[in-house]
């Protein structure tokens, strides 16, 4: 189907959140991260021989829990026990099906089908944080350390 448009169709969350919080009375807009250069790593082996890990922004504790609880690793068996009090669209959808944001079951099916070799036995949680400094200096290095400990060949990251 073809239609004429005067605005882009995909939602700009940077624009929308800026206007929303301005209406809320916060005049200084959030400064989102933007980089010119982007690092790039290639797979070192065929996909079918790869061991894959997953990172989520869903929490192990409620929203008001301290930040220190929000960077974690957890066994795949706890996939349905996470807190999801994030800024997702509560009017349009729900998060009752964990595979819509933490796709461990679907990845296991791809293992069974031979697309990849293995899914890691644990997944990692990372805080959604106003502070980009803490994400870069604390969280990202810890996730990289875990990924090396677990011999991961690649990582899927899913912001909720």
């Amino acid at each position, binding site marked *: 189907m073809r239609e004429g448009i005067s605005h882009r169709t995909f939602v700009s969350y940077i624009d929308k959140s800026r206007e929303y919080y301005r209406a809320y009375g916060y005049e200084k807009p959030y400064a989102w991260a933007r980089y*010119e250069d982007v690092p790039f790593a290639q797979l070192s082996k065929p996909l079918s021989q790869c061991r894959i890990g997953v990172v989520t922004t869903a929490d192990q504790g409620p929203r008001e829990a301290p930040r220190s609880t929000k960077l974690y690793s957890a066994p795949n068996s706890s996939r349905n026990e996470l807190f999801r009090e994030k800024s997702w669209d509560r009017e349009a959808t729900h998060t009752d099906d964990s595979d819509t944001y933490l796709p461990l079951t679907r990845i296991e099916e791809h293992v069974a089908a031979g697309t990849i070799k293995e899914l890691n036995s644990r997944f990692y949680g990372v805080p959604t944080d106003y502070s980009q400094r803490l994400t870069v200096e604390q969280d990202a290095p810890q996730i990289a350390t875990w990924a090396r400990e677990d011999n991961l060949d690649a990582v899927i990251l899913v912001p909720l």
Partner: protein
Amino acid sequence: MSLVARHLEANNIPTVVIGSARDIVEECGVSRFLFVDFPLGNPCGKPWDIEMQYSIIGGALELLERAWLPRTTIQRPEIWAHGDADKVWRERFLRVDDNNREELAKAGEMRRQAQAKNREAAQE
């Protein structure tokens, strides 16, 4: 999350981000981004739609292997709803208009007052 992906890439661990906030991920800049044009909450497919979820994850895995340059975005073909119904969620999320402007300003003011009170209590 994009910042974590960038760090992993810089440490020679390939990544793919599956997400629905296209502007946030692309402005930050990641190696591989699978864009699913859905309301926030279900980037890996519609609830209980196993076939769709399996296909989206397959797409993410394929992107891991096939991208040859950073900032590779693939937009998935799935759509949330057809025709005008697909415009509703896009317009409604974080909407600010004359109907709620006053209410938002009031809510913001109450929140700031509550925060100020908490700060005072913490100092006592």
